[in-house]
Each structure stands twice: as C-alpha cells, then as structure tokens.
C-alpha cells in the first residue's frame, strides 16, 4: 500500500485504525505505565471518582473501584487479557476452520457432509451458551477460555473457507494442475488456499472484535479468566453493584470494549471492501 492510497482512505478508516492501534499499544505497554496488582488494595481510596488524588499522591484519572484499585491500571491489564484471548482464539479457531473448510470444500462428498453437519449442529446452539457450558466444565483459566471460544468460532471460519474453496475447485486451472499430476495437498496449498485467504482475513478481523465481547461475557459471568487476572468483563460485573454510586467502575471498561469492538468492525468492513474489486473505497 503506497502513502498515496493511505492518505486517500476515508476518515473512518483512519479513526478506526488509530483506535485499534492505540488499544493494542496500551495493552502491550500498559503494565509498564500503570502496573496492576490484583492483591493490593487501598480501602481509603475506594470508589474515588475519575481525576481524584489518591492517598499516595498519585492521580486516578479514571477513578478507583470498590477496593481502591486504580481503574486505569485495571482497564489496561484487562485490555491485555482481552487482546490475548481474542487473537489466540481467532488464530486457533481460524486455523482449524481453515483446514476443515479446505477439506470440506475441496473434497466435498462425505468429508464435506460430516464437517458441515457438525458445524450446522453447533450453530444451532447460541455460541455463547456453548462457551458457557465449556468454560463451566473446564474451569476458569485463560487457556480454558481460549479453548471454549475457539470451539465456538471454528465453524464460522470453516464456512467462509469452504465457500471460497467450492468456488475455486472447479476452475479450469485447478483441473489443469490435476492433469499435471499434482497431489490434493499441493492443489489445496497452492491453488485453493490463496483464493480463500482474503475472505478469511475479513472474517478473522470481525471475529477478533466479537471474541473480545464473548470473553468479557464469560468473565462477567465469572466463567472467564481467574480473578487474579484483570478482565473487562469481571470489572463490569463488580461495577454493577455500584452503578448508582460509582458509575465509572462499569462504564470505563464498557466504553473501552465498545470503542475497540466498533473500531475493529469498521476495519473488517474496510478490508472486505478492499478485497472485493467491485467496490470502490469511498
């Protein structure tokens, strides 16, 4: 992408990209700026509104929670959890979905039958319900949250990839590779896969945002990451009891979640438009 095309991108692209970049940077660098220690409490500073000066002389720019912890540190640490879970989930779910989607789309027949039916059955359940069930059985830990969410996400990727693979597999250049004696693995890797990647990338972007919401939902219900790790979901859950007296506890992580998910959604739309040559960026 040249500098010229970047400057010609619509404003929402810049805003969305900037927001996502800011959040990612905050998640990566956040603990350096404002270290989060889940065991440290400061009862005299509890429920301080945003901007108040705390007993140790520092300023709590986003206020404190019910045990006196700095919300900024908590939100930054939560960002890190959220981002890790979302990205790893999408990588795993996307990888599994890519593989199964390729198999189903290229071979068709019984492999497609099995993979697609299992996917259909799974999609019949609300995905969050399945995640709750899995997370409940597996117990709270970041790895288990990722497993639970990846299991609910692979179907979406598999469907996207299967569709693209179906569209390409009967193209003549694929037949020509078969006549040449290319193995199915080679055909999938060099002939089918390249056409599946752009739609997969779009789906993956959108799913990162949705997975962040799902992770927050699990943590909100107490089925997410353990309480020793910060998560927007658990922070919102704690703030629910103080909505009237200390609205910022729930509002700050909620707002952060909404902002980043919307920004990622916009990016996904832009990517989709860019990967489709029929639409012009405007």
């Amino acid at each position: 992408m040249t500098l010229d095309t970047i400057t010609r991108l619509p404003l929402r692209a810049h805003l969305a990209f900037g927001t996502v970049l800011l959040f990612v940077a905050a998640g990566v660098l956040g603990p350096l700026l404002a270290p989060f220690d889940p065991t440290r409490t400061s009862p005299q500073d509890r429920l301080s509104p945003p901007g108040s000066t705390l007993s140790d002389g520092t300023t709590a720019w986003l206020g404190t929670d019910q045990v006196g912890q700095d919300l900024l540190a908590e939100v930054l640490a939560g960002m890190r959890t959220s981002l890790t879970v979302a990205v790893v989930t999408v990588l795993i779910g996307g990888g599994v979905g890519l593989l199964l989607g390729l198999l189903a789309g290229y071979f068709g027949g019984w492999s497609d039958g099995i993979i697609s039916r299992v996917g259909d059955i799974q999609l019949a359940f609300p995905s969050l319900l399945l995640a709750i069930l899995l997370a409940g059985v597996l117990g709270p830990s970041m790895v288990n949250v990722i497993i639970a969410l990846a299991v609910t996400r692979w179907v979406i990727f598999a469907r996207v990839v299967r569709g693209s693979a179906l569209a390409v597999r009967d193209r003549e250049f694929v037949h020509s590779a078969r006549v040449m004696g290319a193995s199915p693995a080679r055909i999938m890797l060099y002939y089918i896969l390249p056409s599946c990647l752009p739609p997969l990338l779009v789906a993956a972007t959108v799913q990162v945002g949705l997975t962040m919401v799902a992770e927050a939902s699990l943590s909100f219900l107490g089925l997410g990451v353990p309480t020793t790790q910060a998560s927007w979901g658990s922070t919102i859950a704690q703030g629910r009891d103080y909505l009237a007296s200390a609205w910022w506890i729930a509002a700050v992580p909620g707002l952060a979640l909404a902002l980043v998910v919307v920004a990622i959604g916009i990016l996904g739309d832009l990517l989709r438009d860019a990967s489709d040559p029929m639409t012009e960026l405007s």
Partner: protein
Amino acid sequence: MPDEPLLELVDLVTTYRLRRAEVHAVAGVSLSVGAGETVGLVGESGCGKSTIARTIVGLVKPSAGQVLFEGRDLATLPARELRRLRQEIQLVFQDPYASLNPRMTVAALLKEAWRIHPGIVPRRDWDAEVRDLLARVGLRPEHADRYPHQFSGGQRQRISIARALTVRPRLIVCDEAVSALDVSVRAQILNLLQELQRDLGVAYLFISHDLGVVHHLCDRVAVMYLGKIAEIGPKAEIYQRPAHPYTQALLSAAPAVDDWRDVDRAEIVLTGDVPSPLAPPSGCRFRTRCFKAEDRCATEEPALLDRGGGHPVACHFANSTTVPATPH
C-alpha cells in the same frame, strides 16, 4: 497406423449422475490414436467430445469400458504407475483465460510439473529449460516473469501448450484448443502444433467443432453424435466420401473455404434439436433428425461397421444414395 496404438478407448462409457437420472455423456466409444498421429474428434456441442477428453486425462472416471495407454488399462494400474503414466497424456483446455493459475508467473507455471515430478528436469536446468520451452512455443525469455493476465489469448494458449510440454507427453489432448482464438491467431497455434509434432513426435487427439481446423490438422477423423461415434476414417475419405448422413449434413453446412467443397453437394439442413442425452432415441440416435430414417432405424441400433465404403459407419443406409429432399 502403427500396430499398437498409443491410446485406445474400448467401449468407453462415461456417466454423469444428476439428481434423479444418469446421463451417458459418452455411450460406448471405441477409438484409437497411434504414436505421432493426429486424430480429430468432431461433433456438435454437448455430444460428449469434452467428456471423452476429461475421461482420458483422468478428471472423470469412466463408468464402463477401458482407457488403454500403450495397451495398459489406466483403471487397473497402481496409483504410483498411474501418476507416472499421467505425464504421458496432457490436456490443453479451450479457455486459455481460465486454465492458467492467475497467481503464478509463467516460469512458475512451467516449473510446476518439475516440482510435482522430480526427475524430469534437474533443478539446475530449470531456468534454461523454461527459456527453451518459451522459445519453442514462440514466446520471449523475458515473458517468464510475467503473469497470465499480461498476455493475449493466443499467447496464453502458447503458455498452456508449453506447460503441457513440460512433462514430455506423448499424447496431447486438445479440447477445443483453438476455438476461443481469433482466426489469425488460430492459424499460428495450429502451425505451432504441427511444428511440435514434427519435432517431438507427439500425438494429438484434437477435439473441435470446426471442420476446417480438423481438416487442416488431422490424419484421421471421428464424427460424434450424442455420445457415440457416427463415422470414423482417414481424413480424405471422411471429407470426400462421407457415408453417414450426419457427416454429410455437417460437411454441407460448413462454410466453403476448403478443398473438400470442390465436390459439389446439395446443402443438407437438419431439422429439430439434438435430443436430450437423458433420453436418447431408440435404435439409431440420429434417426430423429435424419433424412434417410426408416422404420428399421427406430428398432435396430446400427453398429459401427465398414459397410463397403472403406471405413466404419454407424448407419444402416450408409450406401444408399438417397438425396435428401431439400426443404428450400
């Protein structure tokens, strides 16, 4: 024709399964191609020509009959042998815009076969071999780094031919390989094919609906109608003395540019459409449109036999001289 043909089809039947029915796209075809020979296969679209091509190269499995290459049945060969044998038969597709992977450079397209079958060309010779192949099909060395979309249709067909040559095949099946090209480009590609045959001794099964092109290129010609061969024989006999009413109709309808039209013949206009291969007519498949058809044609299917004309014809009345009642 040499003693053992390179390729032999024996009673080949290829069936497509539809939702409720089976279509015999190829309904018992026997045909042979000798080493270094060019056999033309002509017929209307939908008559099963392309299905024959796809069956020969293994894209479709035959439901009955045999495909023999040098006397060996492809269906009974072990997978390893089959893979090796597949190299000997290559296919050039009709649409040069669709048959080249748009994401591969010409060099990558040509080297692909050597990646798949190590041992054809040693890796250190790849670049030199690519240059040689490009030169052979009339392209320049600098074309190697370009992508298919940067070429014209004729150039792309040259790339397809070069690609087929990378595995050193002994038979190239050309499925309407020049039909999508402009007339001038078509002539160039036909000359290229002839040149390659002279230099490399490759045999062609040349599938086309264009009688002029087939006449230009082929030694023998088979005429297909609705999944079966109507008439087969040396080019001169088919074009000078067609015995099957369908062949006669085809030739009379072809534009008068070539020498076979010197024999002045009344134009035969067939009426009606090609029957659906889902429900082919009883007896002779051509009888519904034939100007010679009699009761016998509906009950008895004519075998593909030499009926005194010197080459096999599938018509009960191949020798009768009935002149069709011209509708004009």
